[in-house]
């Protein structure tokens, strides 16, 4: 939820942000593919100070049978925050926030994975947030895309997770922790870099339609940048880079 404290100073006098970024500059992103030996596919993404690790298992038999779909695979996606990932420790176990994020993340990925290739089977996507600094659901989506690709699961496109928001009545790209705590709006999107389609969309706070449009524009620009890093990580992995 947005804090909505319009009176906390988050922009410097020269229009830059407290950490020195410009309004349309994202935090640094690092990605590695294939980092978990036990998984079929895996990825590690560091976005700002966020760290997400994803393991992909399957396709495997879907059981119990009542979850099977005759014409396609089911995606079983879990988003989980490690107890030590936040400032105050989180008690282990699913909570309502995690369940909602798991649901909409699964639906985003279902929109690009060629599920019809694996009728009656299940693909598990396990998203673990090890360190959280605002924007973890987006980092999880990015990492899940890379891990699915690393597992060799066919997809019609990747999904890049990225958010813009509003601070001090100004639209900015990729809120960090302070901006998230004291900002006025947050607009996370899941963008397909090739088709330009959206498969994930949430928003809360307060945005005029014009602000929405500008935030969307920032998100698309950043998605293209992150996509390049994703592709490089996968290349690295298959060119015999670190496994």
């Amino acid at each position, binding site marked *: *939820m*947005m804090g*909505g404290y319009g009176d906390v100073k988050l922009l410097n006098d020269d229009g830059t942000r407290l950490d020195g970024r410009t309004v349309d500059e994202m935090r640094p992103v690092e990605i590695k593919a294939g980092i978990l030996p036990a998984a079929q596919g895996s990825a590690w993404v560091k976005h700002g100070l966020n760290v997400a690790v994803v393991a992909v298992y399957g396709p495997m038999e879907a059981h119990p*049978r*009542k*979850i*099977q*779909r*005759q*014409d396609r695979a089911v995606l079983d996606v879990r988003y989980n925050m490690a107890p030590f990932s936040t400032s105050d420790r989180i008690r282990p176990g699913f909570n*309502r*926030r995690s*369940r*909602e994020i*798991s*649901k*909409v993340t699964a*639906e985003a990925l*279902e*929109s*690009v994975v060629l599920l019809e290739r694996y009728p009656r089977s299940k693909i598990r996507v396990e998203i673990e947030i090890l360190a959280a600094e605002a924007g973890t659901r987006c980092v999880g989506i990015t990492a899940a895309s890379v891990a699915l690709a690393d597992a060799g699961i066919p997809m019609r496109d990747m999904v890049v997770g990225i958010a813009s928001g509003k601070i001090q009545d100004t639209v900015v790209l990729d809120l960090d922790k302070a901006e998230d705590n004291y900002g006025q709006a947050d*607009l996370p999107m899941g963008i*397909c870099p090739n*088709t*330009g*389609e*959206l*498969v*994930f*969309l*949430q*928003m*809360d*706070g*307060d*945005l*005029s*339609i014009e602000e*929405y449009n500008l935030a*969307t524009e920032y998100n698309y620009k950043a998605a293209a940048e992150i996509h390049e890093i994703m592709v490089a990580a996968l290349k690295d992995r298959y060119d015999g880079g670190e496994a």
Partner: protein
Amino acid sequence: MAAPVPSLLRQELERLAESDQRIDGRGRWDRRDVQLEVDILYNAEGSAKVTWGDTVVYAGVKFELRTPWPDRPTQGSLMCGAELRPVAHRKYEPGPPSPQSIELGRVVDRGIRESGCIDMEALCIVPGEKVWGVMIDIHVLSDGGNIFDACGLAAIAALRTAVVPAERFDVGEDHVLAVKGTPVMASFQRVGGRFVYDPCEDEETGGEERIHITLGDEEHLHSLQKGLKGAFTPAEFAEILEVARTHCGELRELVSSMEGN
């Protein structure tokens, strides 16, 4: 094995879409009939019943005295929950809240909360010691499609007609809850390839992704949610956002007409 989405229904919806028709005869951006009743339940401090086509939803508001969070000593709190209980449809099973039920509750909650319509500071009684907790519970009794919009409407109507039971808690005189705006949700679903407003049950069964938009009094966005499998373009979003503006305005007036009753 879960039933595949009925392909005959899907074909029928696609066929209708070709001539821009809908399965219940409505136009693409038409709304079903909506009836709103308020102040109908003993024990609830505010209550509303929404009959939206074949969908029936009740909302009730309760208050409690709480100690404020240490970092927000002058703020009360708001909790908005929606439950998809098995009463509402043959398809809902008993058990712990499903992801569908959790999403519904959280999307409705965000629409109300993020609009800022409840002034948290106005819920403070003694700073650092005693504040009001406002709890809206929404009960879906009959799911005939588009329960998101029906729940959102029931919630804001129950809030706007709620009375703070200060006397019962011995903290002053009963008074109307101050509500500063009327956030309203408009939901769209891709049916037969294109988005329609206010999907009915068949359209939900045979449709694809949904988009839920909550607009405040000044037509600012307060909450967005894309649900279910499917992809859409920014241009499609721009189109439904325009439609949402009209419908949210109409429903906002319906809520306003209830007050003072």
